[in-house]
């Protein structure tokens, strides 16, 4: 198929899923937290408050667009454009479905661009994510946004290290950077984090660390120091109004969806599961949903770390542990156990 046609056929549904999912996520988060705290959450707009995201979007578009007088105008206006772009672009390499090809092997499909460097592409974009957020904090010229931006950069580059190292574990098992090859490996050898093979122990720990580090990258509680509202009002978004604020929030919700999907593909088999390959899309969405709910469950159960505790956890525990995991997985592959 022509690559442009292919990208449209897969990309348009993917974009719709991500944007619709992010809108529903705002509804879900409020509804879910409401249930957890014995209150109702949104109920008024639409059945069970389902149209609340539409109302919110309309409200944000009508709000006055204010740029602080002391702000760096160009950068202030440019910064919100990038976070959603980076998150959506990183979703382009994630396979969402599976087929069985002629010789009976399971093959991952439903991917916009099956790059050879798949996971590297995702990690590179995740590394770029700190810029627009830091720039937003700096350009607003406000001490709270500035502090938040500094925390964001510190947290972003620290947690990127265990995230990349843990993502290397499935890469070493599969011997490929491509996400569809990683799925194909799991089709033969069982899920990286959940199977009877001895490598699954390493895989499970790596999955846990990867998930924690992605929570930190997505700024979710217990790692949402950059927007700790009790100290910093609301992080880098403080000076943003209306739809620009909305775009930052959109990027955050998108990030939780993409992080769940990525964890599902790397460690839990992605579109693999019992039943015919047609069910692949269902399995993938189901696994993503479970991890997605887990993120929100954690967010509303725990409180946030202090800034120094956060760095301590990363550099003293997660980084050494993930280095050990990378070595162990290399040994397992060399010893023929994986």
């Amino acid at each position, binding site marked *: 198929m022509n690559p442009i046609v292919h990208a449209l056929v897969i990309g348009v549904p993917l974009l719709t899923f991500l944007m619709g999912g992010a809108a529903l996520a705002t509804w879900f988060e409020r509804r879910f937290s409401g249930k957890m705290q014995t209150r109702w959450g949104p109920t008024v707009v639409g059945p069970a408050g389902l149209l609340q995201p539409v109302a919110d979007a309309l409200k944000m578009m009508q709000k006055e667009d204010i740029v602080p007088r002391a702000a760096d105008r160009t950068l202030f206006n440019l910064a919100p454009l990038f976070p959603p772009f980076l998150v959506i672009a990183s979703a382009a390499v994630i396979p969402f479905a599976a087929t069985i090809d002629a010789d009976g092997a399971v093959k991952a499909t439903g991917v916009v661009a099956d790059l050879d*460097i798949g996971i*590297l592409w995702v990690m*590179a974009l995740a*590394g770029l994510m*700190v810029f627009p957020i830091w720039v937003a904090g*700096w350009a607003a010229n406000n001490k709270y946004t500035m502090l938040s931006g*500094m925390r964001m950069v510190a947290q972003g580059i620290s947690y990127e290290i265990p995230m990349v190292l843990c993502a290397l574990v499935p890469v070493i098992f599969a011997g490929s*950077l491509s996400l569809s090859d990683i799925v194909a490996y799991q089709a033969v050898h069982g899920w990286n984090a959940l199977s009877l093979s001895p490598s699954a122990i390493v895989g499970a720990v790596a999955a846990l660390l990867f998930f924690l580090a992605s929570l930190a990258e997505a700024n979710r509680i217990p790692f949402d120091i950059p927007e700790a509202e009790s100290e910093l009002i609301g992080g880098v978004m403080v000076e943003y109004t209306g739809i620009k604020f909305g775009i930052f929030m959109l990027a955050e919700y998108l990030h939780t969806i993409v992080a769940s999907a990525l964890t599902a593909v790397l460690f839990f088999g992605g579109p693999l599961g019992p039943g015919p390959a047609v069910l692949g899309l269902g399995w993938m969405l189901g696994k993503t949903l479970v991890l997605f709910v887990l993120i929100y469950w954690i967010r509303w159960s725990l409180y946030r770390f202090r800034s120094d505790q956060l760095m301590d956890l990363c550099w003293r525990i997660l980084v050494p542990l993930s280095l050990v995991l990378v070595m162990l997985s290399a040994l397992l592959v060399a010893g023929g156990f994986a």
Partner: protein
Amino acid sequence: MTAFAVIAGIILASGLMVVRSENLVHSVLWLAVTLIATAVQFVLLNAPFLAGMQLMLYTGGIITLMLFGVMLTIRDEGVDIPNPSEGHLAGAGAALAFLVPTLYAIWGTPDFGPMVDPITAKDIGSSFLGPQLIAFEALSVLLLAAMIGAIVLVRRKDP
């Protein structure tokens, strides 16, 4: 070729902006544009792994470190750090002195023709652990030395 020329133009223009910007933060951000455009150039040259690494290490890592540097050097109130361009003549001289041998090297290089196979991560890995092993190990020793140096520099004098 057109794409190459456009990207090369972006690299040159943003590189110029890095030295011409009066604001240090703007300089750093223009440098990010330069590095991202270089990554795009690698994609055009059929080296996707190199492009990914360029994005991850240079744009994601080095620029972030520079932002850290900028933040840690803000001692006073206000965020405008003056970054004047001085010594235009000496700079032009140095640029010219660099340009001449570079042009000489470019003209001396044979035309390899269009690249057919992409350079994959496997190719790069096996060349690191094969023919280029000594250079690779020397580089890692260099990085280790830099790291130890940094630790020595920031260590407190009184234990």
